[in-house]
């Protein structure tokens, strides 16, 4: 059995509403209304055997309303009225009487209706509506009916209807109407485009005057303990304003969110409240415009985000407050999303900072970060990297462009974050730490009224950690690049260095191949080849040593060694070179100087130092001295040659270092590096000092027995 889900059916005892089509609103009520009219009309005779639709069509009064019900009639219109009633086992007259009563008691049923044919620009008004307004016209151009609307509301209503007509969308609105005798009534209208036939708008009208007044004056009626406790338990701040702009309801959260003092609320006036809150906002004009627009359009809902001067961020929802159909006010709800926004923008900033720090141009990255950090940290931010020789912070930014060079507190230099106040300013300083060492600092300043929170300090610390890491990475990268560059230079120098021996060998071999070479020449050439061979071998050994040193696998086999003996042996081995350079070598080694060392490595020390002296000694005398005392042995090799400039005195012990310009010297400069490596291994030291009168003295100190 078909359940015609209408108010009528309900009044007729049908309880199966839930399974029915969802049009229990004006449609259902319209049917009831229409039937009421029918009932009155039935006095002049309705044939109940006819389908409802036919009956409706015959009676002009009901036509307007039933047009609105087009859908519903499609469901039930073909059913004869008496059948419909009979199926329910009801008495038609009784049904109609019940309906009449219900309508009397219940206000939500529309008090009138109208229809606007947009194309022909004609409005037709139902008799009920004319009765309510106490007007005479039943149809005509829209202006004729608009004339009954209160002059203050008329422009708004006109505009709303134009919009609805233009866009053909449903809308609801409220406005005041003036009866011919001047009495105002408050109407709520709901307008919908007609299904199927366009362009026609159908409107239902309710007179809500009494309702309106009741609600405004009766707080006690509206508010119950349950409602109050609900309001106080929400997460949002809630404010309810009535149609006249008076505050009808609010909760504590609203007051505390907006920091509203009691006296403003006590005024219960929207305007006072409004100007109080406007001061707190960043864009009060925008806020005000929104509010006015919503008041002008009571049915509108809105959502937006409010930003405060002190950095707070609220989300604001605003919806009309309805009782049944009528809009009786507006509900504003506010949610404090400051924390959420702060975390989001912090996370976004941290992501950007991390990206910036990956770049190789660290200074620009730090600069950009300091600038971008200001909204999070205050009015000024400075980052100082201590290795930067400039006494000012490496980078700094302030909100007003003034310089910012704060003094760092001792705590920060000792590796701890510090927050302190001075000159109406709150400072926070965080050290930049790499492997336990403080390499710089990050400082932020804010006005005292916005002093830094624990959360901000932690944020700074996280940022500082990233910056320190980036600085360290940049340094490591530079070191690696320097090392590669040094190695590449050395490789090219090594290749260059080989040309000498190769030249000599090539010429010697070509000479030996000649027919006319004498025996004496042969002997000379062969001796040369032997020498060059040894030279190349030593060269190769040096390279191998360097490789082994770098790989950490240089072998040391310690035994009891007499340093004096080793010196004499080395000098003897270098006799030819000594003779060639013309440098006379004198040895001074008092008694046996014994130590527990690898003899080959000690020999390397002596030989390398001697060769260095021969190379740079300019043919002048060289002195070698060795002595022992208190468990330590001292070896010195002095020359009277070019000397080592002060700036180079550490450099020459590094691998591939050359103390003099490449233009003057070839050579890899590995000898001294090897000396230092061996000396370090034995826990000793080697240094070069200038010699009085010109030249250098290399001083080696070794423990006689490292294990002691």
């Amino acid at each position, binding site marked *: 059995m078909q359940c015609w889900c209408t108010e009528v059916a309900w009044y007729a005892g049908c309880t199966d509403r839930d399974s029915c089509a969802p049009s229990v609103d004006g449609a259902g009520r319209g049917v009831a209304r229409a039937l009421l009219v029918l009932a009155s009309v039935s006095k002049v005779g309705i044939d109940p055997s006819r389908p409802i639709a036919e009956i409706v069509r015959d009676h002009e009064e009901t036509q307007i309303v039933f047009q609105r019900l087009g859908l519903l009639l499609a469901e039930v219109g073909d059913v004869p009225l008496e059948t419909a009633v009979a199926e329910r086992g009801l008495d038609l007259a009784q049904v109609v009487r019940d309906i009449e009563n219900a309508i009397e008691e219940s206000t939500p049923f529309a008090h009138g209706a109208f229809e606007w044919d947009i194309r022909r620009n004609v409005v037709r008004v139902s008799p009920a509506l004319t009765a309510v307004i106490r007007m005479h016209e039943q149809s005509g151009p829209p202006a004729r009916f608009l004339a009954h609307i209160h002059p203050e509301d008329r422009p708004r209503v006109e505009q709303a209807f134009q919009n609805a007509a233009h866009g053909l969308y449903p809308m609801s609105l409220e406005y005041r109407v003036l009866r011919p005798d001047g009495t105002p009534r408050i109407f709520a209208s709901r307008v919908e485009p007609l299904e199927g036939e366009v362009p026609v708008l159908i409107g239902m009208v309710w007179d809500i005057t009494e309702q309106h007044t009741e609600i405004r004056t009766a707080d006690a009626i509206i508010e119950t303990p349950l409602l109050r406790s609900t309001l106080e338990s929400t997460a949002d701040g809630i404010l309810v304003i009535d149609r006249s702009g008076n505050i009808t309801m609010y909760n504590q959260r609203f007051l505390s969110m907006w920091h509203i003092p009691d006296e403003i609320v006590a005024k219960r006036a929207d305007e006072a409240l409004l100007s109080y809150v406007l001061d707190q906002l960043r864009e009060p004009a925008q806020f005000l415009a929104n509010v006015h627009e919503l008041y002008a359009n009571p049915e509108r809902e809105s959502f937006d985000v409010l930003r405060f001067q002190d950095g707070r961020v609220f989300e604001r929802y605003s919806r009309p407050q309805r009782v049944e159909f009528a809009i009786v006010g507006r509900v504003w709800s506010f949610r404090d999303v400051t924390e959420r926004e702060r975390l989001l923008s912090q996370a976004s900033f941290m992501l950007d900072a991390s990206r910036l720090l990956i770049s190789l141009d660290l200074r620009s990255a730090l600069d950009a970060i300091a600038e971008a950090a200001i909204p999070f940290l205050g009015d000024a931010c400075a980052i100082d990297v201590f290795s930067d020789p400039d006494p000012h912070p490496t980078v700094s930014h302030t909100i007003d462009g003034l310089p910012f060079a704060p003094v760092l507190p001792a705590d920060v230099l000792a590796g701890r974050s510090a927050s302190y106040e001075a000159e109406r300013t709150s400072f926070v300083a965080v050290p930049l730490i790499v492997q336990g060492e403080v390499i710089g600092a990050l400082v932020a300043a804010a006005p005292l009224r916005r002093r830094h929170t624990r959360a901000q300090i932690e944020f700074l610390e996280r940022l500082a950690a990233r910056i320190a890491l980036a600085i360290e990475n940049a340094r490591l990268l530079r070191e690696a690049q320097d090392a590669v560059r040094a190695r590449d230079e050395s490789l090219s120098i090594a290749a260059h260095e080989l*040309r000498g021996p*190769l030249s000599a060998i*090539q*010429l010697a071999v070509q000479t030996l191949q000649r027919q006319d070479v004498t025996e004496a020449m042969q002997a000379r050439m062969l001796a040369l080849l032997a020498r060059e061979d040894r030279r190349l071998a030593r060269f190769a050994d040096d390279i191998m040593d360097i490789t082994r040193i770098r790989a950490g696998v240089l072998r040391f086999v310690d035994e009891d060694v007499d340093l004096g003996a080793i010196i004499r042996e080395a000098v003897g081995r270098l006799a030819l070179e000594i003779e060639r350079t013309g440098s006379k070598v004198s040895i001074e080694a008092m008694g046996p100087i014994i130590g527990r060392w690898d003899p080959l490595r000690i020999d390397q020390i002596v030989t390398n130092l001697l060769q260095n002296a021969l190379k740079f000694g300019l043919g002048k005398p060289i002195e070698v001295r060795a002595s022992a005392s208190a468990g330590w042995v001292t070896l010195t090799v002095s020359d009277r040659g070019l000397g080592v400039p002060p700036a180079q005195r550490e450099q020459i012990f590094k691998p591939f270092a050359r103390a003099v310009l490449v233009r003057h010297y070839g050579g890899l400069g590995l000898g001294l590096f090897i000396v230092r490596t061996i000396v370090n291994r034995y826990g000793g030291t080697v240094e070069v000092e200038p010699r009085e009168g010109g030249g250098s003295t290399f001083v080696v100190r070794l423990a006689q027995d490292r294990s002691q």
Partner: protein
Amino acid sequence: MMEHRNVVLVVDDDPDILDVVEVVLELQGVPSICASDGQAALAALRSSNEIGLVLLDLMMPGMSGSEVLAEIKREPGLSGVPVVLISGNYHTEQNVKTMGADEHLVKPVDVAELMGVVSRFVAVPGRPPEPPATPDAHKRH
């Protein structure tokens, strides 16, 4: 080529180079003087009027080859003596000529190359004089 100047002055800090070049020249019948540093080289130039060519190593401790060359060119009595620079690097033709050298050899040098250059400046017994250097004579590198 300078008449009556048939001695080659060989300047290099590497004793083995001096040794072998002396022998190579001797086998070709070219007399030579060896100097192991700039000072000795200049002293030899000043005291002898038989030097017809200087073979000058660029890379030397103390006074570098280019300093020696500059000095030679500065002294009126010496500036006419041709100088051949020997180095381990490739200098451009322009560079070498700007420095005032007449020719440039890159180590390692073989006998043919060496003698080819030497014979342009001093007489080599049993070998006809080489024609003067043309722009692409230094074609190698």
